């Protein structure tokens, strides 16, 4: 269920990117794609009745049933990379706004 929701989120993001002409909205859509992708990655490693992959004093043995830790590690990386691109995109958006005075692609003319 949640896996399909993740795929639909990615599709939503793609639709948003294709149909929007506002650069801030495009960055928002990009973020939606990333969130959907991250949920999908985590869902690939989920195991029913599995426990979170941390050894503690209550779950102290490695022989118990854990959920897959590798996708979680990958998502940590993906989240940070996403923040990097978002920050850069927003900085570019600010730059574009100071040059053209608008966020709308249609109002910028096609001098680029």
């Amino acid at each position, binding site marked *: 269920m949640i896996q399909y*929701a993740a795929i639909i989120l990615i599709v939503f993001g793609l639709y948003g990117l294709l149909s929007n002409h506002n650069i*801030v909205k495009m960055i928002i859509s990009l*973020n939606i794609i990333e969130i959907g992708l*991250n*949920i999908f990655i*985590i869902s690939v490693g989920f195991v029913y009745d599995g426990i979170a992959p941390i050894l503690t004093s209550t779950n102290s043995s490695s022989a118990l049933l854990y959920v897959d830790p590798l996708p979680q590690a990958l998502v940590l990386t993906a989240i940070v990379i996403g*923040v990097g691109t978002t920050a850069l995109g927003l900085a570019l958006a*600010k730059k574009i*706004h100071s040059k053209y005075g608008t966020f709308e692609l249609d109002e910028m003319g096609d001098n680029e």
Partner: protein
Amino acid sequence: MTLTDIIMAVVSVLLLGIAFMAVSSKKLIKGVIFLSALSMLSVVSYVLMKAPDVALTEAVIGSGMVTALFVFTLLSIDKGATK
């Protein structure tokens, strides 16, 4: 259907609803707020899927920092427009 399944189904529906609002909202600031809510809901789904590390990271970075950056961008633009 166990309780986890039901909660996951509810979260999935909410995720899609909020994502739709974020994509279709006319005002930029609304889109940003919905994105933040979407990120927070994804934190819930991470917790449900037993990924506390990811949940913490997404809550702090994805939901907190990214929203702040969006809001700062919009704020500085608003200032420039009213001048």
